[in-house]
């Protein structure tokens, strides 16, 4: 009889303990866990600061390059219009060609000086974001929960199309600072963008190294090569982008819908 009483008390204690633990857990569990959508912190301070620094580095490089590239293009136009591209050994043509080559060298020097710093900040941003995306979206959410995170807010105002690196990263920094939704999409876009810019910087640094070697070997002086023109075009498209087109991403969910809600909807 006494044994039964002891057993009953023990069972009661165990059950009370479990219930108590569940209640405590429920109170301390974040609301998001109860609703299923994870809480996000995708932009810690260091990532945001790196983004800002990337934008500033890009702007400094753009300012240095702008005049040099403008001179290069003016001189190549003059070279072509003067008939120098037919292989003329006219002293005027030779002089123009030397100036073109000097401007080109200057452009390569500016890039060689600025690209390593940009690579550092870009890679730091990319690594920071990768870590957050992996831990918060990759390992702490199911694919279905990713849609829960998006929410119904309309897309922020963005600069569409291709635009300069500095403006792009300044835009990213502004969007993050203003805490406009949806941040998961913004974080994903920035991560993909920084990854591709990092790869471009690697390719560009390799190409600059190669072309510096060619210049040192003296092959490029005295002529405007298609390689030079292509390199300048490449730099312009990546660093400066095309003309900006400001607009609003078409908003999907802003208007009112039929208010019917089915019990069958997830």
């Amino acid at each position: 009889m006494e044994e039964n009483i002891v057993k009953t008390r023990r069972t009661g204690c165990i059950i009370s303990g479990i219930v108590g633990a569940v209640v405590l857990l429920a109170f301390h569990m974040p609301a998001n866990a109860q609703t299923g959508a994870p809480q996000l912190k995708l932009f810690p301070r260091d990532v945001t600061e790196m983004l800002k620094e990337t934008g500033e580095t890009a702007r400094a490089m753009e300012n240095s390059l702008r005049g040099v590239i403008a001179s290069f293009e003016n001189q190549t136009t003059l070279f072509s219009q003067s008939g120098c591209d037919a292989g003329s050994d006219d002293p005027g043509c030779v002089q123009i060609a030397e100036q073109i080559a000097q401007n080109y060298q200057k452009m390569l020097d500016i890039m060689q000086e600025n690209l390593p710093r940009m690579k550092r900040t870009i890679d730091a941003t990319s690594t920071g974001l990768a870590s957050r995306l992996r831990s918060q979206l990759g390992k702490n959410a199911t694919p279905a929960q990713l849609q829960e995170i998006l929410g119904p807010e309309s897309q922020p105002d963005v600069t569409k199309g291709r635009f300069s690196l500095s403006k792009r990263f300044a835009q990213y920094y502004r969007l993050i600072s203003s805490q406009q939704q949806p941040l998961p999409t913004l974080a994903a876009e920035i991560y993909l963008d920084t990854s591709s810019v990092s790869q471009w910087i690697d390719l560009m640094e390799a190409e600059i190294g190669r072309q510096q070697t060619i210049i040192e070997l003296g092959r490029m002086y005295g002529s405007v090569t298609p390689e030079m023109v292509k390199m300048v075009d490449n730099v312009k498209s990546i660093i400066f982008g095309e003309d900006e087109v400001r607009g609003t991403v078409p908003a999907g969910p802003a208007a009112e819908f039929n208010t019917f809600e089915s019990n069958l909807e997830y």
Partner: protein
Amino acid sequence: MEATAMFRHIHIKNVLPVTLIALCMLSTACAQTSIVRSNCDLPSSNRLNAAIAEAQATLAQRDCAARFDDIFDRLIYIAQNDTDTNNRREFSDFLNWSRDQNLINTRQAKDLYTRYFSHKFVSLPRDYQTCTHCREIGTITRAMKAELVSKQTGLLKICGERDLYARAAAEYEDLQIILEATCKACQNGE
């Protein structure tokens, strides 16, 4: 000798009638079965509510349960020519009824409704972390693309819900970017 012959006589005498009776019963049963056959035709009305009533009458016959998928597809087809914002409710009611009749289970009812009439994507897995699904991300993306077409049918053509479809399309684009970036981050972390 006489005993054997007598045994044989008794045996035939007892077995033969029983066999004859059994054969009669069997032929009667077969005749009865061949007479009762269910009519499992697809709904023919051009109006969705009438078509749903026809569908329910058909599916109420147990023998027609196997035609649920065909009948549902027919309702989807009919509804595209009978656009109305209330059609979402009509389909919700029909799927709830089908579940109550045990024609489909709750998961199937939710999947069908959400696939056609919600901005949410059932193609997105609901179990395990996102990184686990990265190897099949191509399959998921293709499934989402196909589902977006279903939502175009349901939300736009059947219900006329432009804004809700626009939301589904916008979220589809966002999710492609997020999935690509997250899987890239998962792979870089391995």
